[in-house]
């Protein structure tokens, strides 16, 4: 399975979700690992701004995501296209609203998700430096950031870097995630209404509706 195939349309949201798990981080990887140990679940609204040179204003998508330890994720778009990505007990599915209602995506891209889930297992424990695909770096200064850069050239041709900005006001909350593909082309995700360690029913991760 090629590296490029692994990220095809699927890895991106997973990266973002996984990054979100690393809330409450400190200034070292050890701090981050310790802080993430207490996170059982996360829920948040997100707004996605897609910037492209071809667009004069960003294309805005909105949705909500859920995470439940150890590896259950629901990544849901409400607009402009209704879509749900579900990861639960090693199974990955995606449903999109189309002309025949909510239809499961069968384009083949999801087969790579089994590999990605292994990455999540590492990252959700704050073990960034053990990732085989990304090299992680903490940047201090006025506003702390975590920079992820691809280890392999094939990957770097698709994603140049990912920049995670923690919320300065609320410990344990991510403010934004920026995925840079190339100069002028990037995706910016802003998170709001973040709720942590609230009970989430299992069906949220199993059912598209």
């Amino acid at each position, binding site marked *: 399975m090629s590296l*490029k195939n692994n990220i095809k349309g699927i890895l991106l949201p997973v990266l973002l979700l996984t990054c979100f798990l690393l809330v409450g981080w400190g200034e070292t990887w050890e701090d981050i690992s310790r802080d993430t140990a207490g996170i059982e679940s996360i829920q948040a609204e997100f707004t996605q701004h897609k910037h*492209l040179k071809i667009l*004069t204003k960003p*294309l805005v998508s909105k949705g909500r995501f859920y995470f439940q330890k150890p590896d259950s994720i629901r990544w849901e778009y409400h607009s402009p296209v209704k879509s749900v990505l579900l990861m639960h007990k090693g199974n990955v599915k995606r449903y*999109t609203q*189309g002309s025949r209602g909510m239809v499961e*995506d*069968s384009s083949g891209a999801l087969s790579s998700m089994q590999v990605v889930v292994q990455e999540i297992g590492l990252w959700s424990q704050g073990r960034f430096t053990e990732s085989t695909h990304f090299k992680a770096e903490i940047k201090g200064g006025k506003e702390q950031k975590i920079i992820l850069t691809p280890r392999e050239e094939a990957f770097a041709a698709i994603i140049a870097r990912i920049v995670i900005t923690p919320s300065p006001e609320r410990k344990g909350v991510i403010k934004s995630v920026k995925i840079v593909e190339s100069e002028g*082309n990037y*995706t910016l995700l802003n998170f709001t209404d973040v709720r942590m360690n609230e009970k989430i029913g299992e069906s949220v991760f199993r059912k598209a509706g």
Partner: protein
Amino acid sequence: MKRRMAARRLGLLLILVIFPAACVHVPDMKSLDPLTDRAVIEECGRPFVKLPYRFVHAIEATLPGGRTATLIGVTVVDPEAKFLHSVLMTLEGLVLFDGEYDGNLSVKRAVPPFDKESFARNMMEDIRLLFLSPEDSSAEAGVLMDGSTLCRYRGKEGETIDVTVQPDHAWKIVTYVNPFDRLREIKSGDDKDGIPEELELKGYSHGGYTLRLRLVEAEPVSAATPPSPSEDETDQE
């Protein structure tokens, strides 16, 4: 003997049944007179973009074998310059394909499986047919029994392009190389301010595929000039 006759009859019956289904119905046409047929010519231009425009569509693709995928497509069209710029991305915003066409195809970015040259050429041909009027100026035209206007153009590759506009302004485009070899078929759905909110394109090559385009945004742009930076281009990093 009787069995042979029966087999022949059955064969003939199958030909009569199957052939009309596989063929394009090709009505006789008369040549256009640019002076007297101006209204007809203008009606045939209804499907095509008149001014530089930017479109964002949600694209539901049904691929050979029944596989489905939904993508976002951004297209800038400049009809005067015959220029197209198309970006195809996942719902999460990952760009899979970025290419331009100005008579020649230029691919800026292509992620597997969208990096095959045949894919890029076929996709640009789809987009060209969706938005740009055929370059053939010597079209034939006529009015059909149901009141629809039909114009027939010759494509660059020698294919025939039939544009049919119904009295209710819904339209259809069919391309074929002969009455038995259909290439593409496009149907418009309801429109808003003259821009279709839904389009359906059926491709009969590459194993057959269907693209259903739902309009997300449409806005006029200045002619094929580089766009200004996004509002929050300088946002946080």
